[in-house]
């Protein structure tokens, strides 16, 4: 098994940390993992992205030009990465603020309105976990229990009381995601 993923959005949407949680989850189930962030000015308000690879075998290039799965959380990211999804791959987008929508028909396109849900339910802190839940519904690449193990590992102990909240967010995301084509 090998899954090459790009997660892209605005800085502050939890793009980098979602990628980290995914990488930790892969670590928990004994896979090879790599997490490569875009770094620099992009972290400070522009677009940010993280490339995550989960693989049963040694990972060659952590730098990729095409992806099995793209998760895009803003318009510029859709425009940049829709074309980079491999044919037959998966595109997940959060439609908040979008005025142009995915057009490709040779890939599986899903929509998850996590931003809208998070604002309506005062859950902005777990928005990225909602999206991660959506991803795991349509691409069950890691087990939810391993996500929680990974979270426990990566979070400082003082934040462990937030684990329940995060687990709930994953399940909310699983219900929220909708297939477009």
């Amino acid at each position, binding site marked *: 098994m090998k899954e090459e993923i790009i997660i892209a959005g605005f800085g502050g949407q939890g793009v980098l940390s979602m990628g980290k949680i995914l990488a930790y989850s892969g670590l928990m189930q004994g896979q090879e*993992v790599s997490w490569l962030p875009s*770094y620099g*000015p992009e972290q400070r308000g522009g677009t940010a992205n993280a490339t995550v690879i989960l693989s049963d075998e040694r*990972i*060659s*290039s*952590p730098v*990729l030009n095409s992806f099995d799965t793209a998760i895009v959380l803003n318009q510029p990211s859709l425009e940049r990465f829709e074309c980079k999804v491999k044919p037959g791959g998966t595109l997940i987008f959060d439609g908040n603020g979008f005025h142009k929508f995915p057009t490709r028909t040779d890939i599986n396109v899903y929509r998850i309105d996590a931003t809208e849900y998070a604002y309506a339910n005062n859950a902005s802190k777990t928005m990225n976990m909602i999206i991660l839940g959506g991803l795991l519904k349509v691409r069950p690449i890691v087990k939810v229990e391993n996500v929680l193990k990974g979270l426990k590992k*990566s979070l400082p102990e003082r934040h462990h009381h937030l684990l329940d909240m995060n687990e709930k967010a994953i399940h909310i995301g699983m219900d929220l995601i909708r297939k477009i084509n």
Partner: protein
Amino acid sequence: MSTEKKHNTEEVRLMKGNEAIAHAAIRCGCDGYFGYPITPQSEIMETLMDLEPWNTTGMVVLQAESETASINMVYGAAGCGKKAMTSSSSPGVSLMQEGISYMVGAELPCVIVNVMRGGPGLGTIQPSQADYFQTVKGGGHGDYKLITLAPASVQEMADFMVKSFDLAFKYRTPVMILADGIIGQMMEKVVLPPFTPRWTEEEIREQTPWATLGKTPDRKPNVINSLRLEAADMEKLNLVLQSRYREIEQKEVLFEEFECADADYIIVAFGITARICQKTVELARQKGIKAGLIRPITLYPFPTAQIKEYADKVKGMISVEMSAGQMIEDVRLAVNGKVPVEFYGRMGGIVPSPEEVLEALENKLIG
């Protein structure tokens, strides 16, 4: 908190290359880190400050006022026989060149980590490999070489920290770990090196009898110095250095091969570019092109003999770098005209993709 508890061993962790450098430094018994913040490597000092090794191993961590001060603090520490290090990124390493030359002249061991970014000038904070010439061809003034290790993974960031100190003290020379922004910033699995205690003062006296620990009645004063006003003395020091370099070239070459045995075409690449090119080799093989990869791990000493050997067996080579073409000069020296050696590179912080390298290989070598 006990040292063992804070730095427990054998565990597979997920961390950034920069973080791995910091953890490994503490574990390998480093005595002092002196540095100045610069992207994309500031996590090294941040991690050290967070781990507070002065409470466990007694390691000193100090944020200096500049890279110039940092490298000179490393000089002062190394002069006392201590394991000292600094880290920076390209513009900061330029500023350190004076100190590096002085340390070579004073025969002092140390480790310098360069997490390269694009230049020239203030440049960009995105990854680059354009400091190859600066690192392996000199950088500072005078005839000298820096043992240069080029990690290609987070694991190697940790492993080379340990290896670099060993080499630095074995040959009494500064050693450079030449990484780039990607390896510094990416997270991968890593098993940290086991915990080794710092040298005691008795061990320092034994291992580095030249160290300035205070003149005892049983010996003459120790002087750490790179000044030799008499030309004959200066040449003598140069001869010592050169004979040491010949020994290093004999004994310390490290490289890795991938799919080279039956290769028609060989890509030569180091650091993160070698990882990208490994994928290129996979893609090429899927298309029926017999490509292979040689990854120099030590950039100085360069695997000249190993590359030369393949020059008799292949149809051509291509050096792939995040620069305008620097290592290619060493590849061409090794190949010595036997087969074409082409170049593909991106500059200024742009990272080549495996696909574009394949295209370059097809266009430039296969035609």
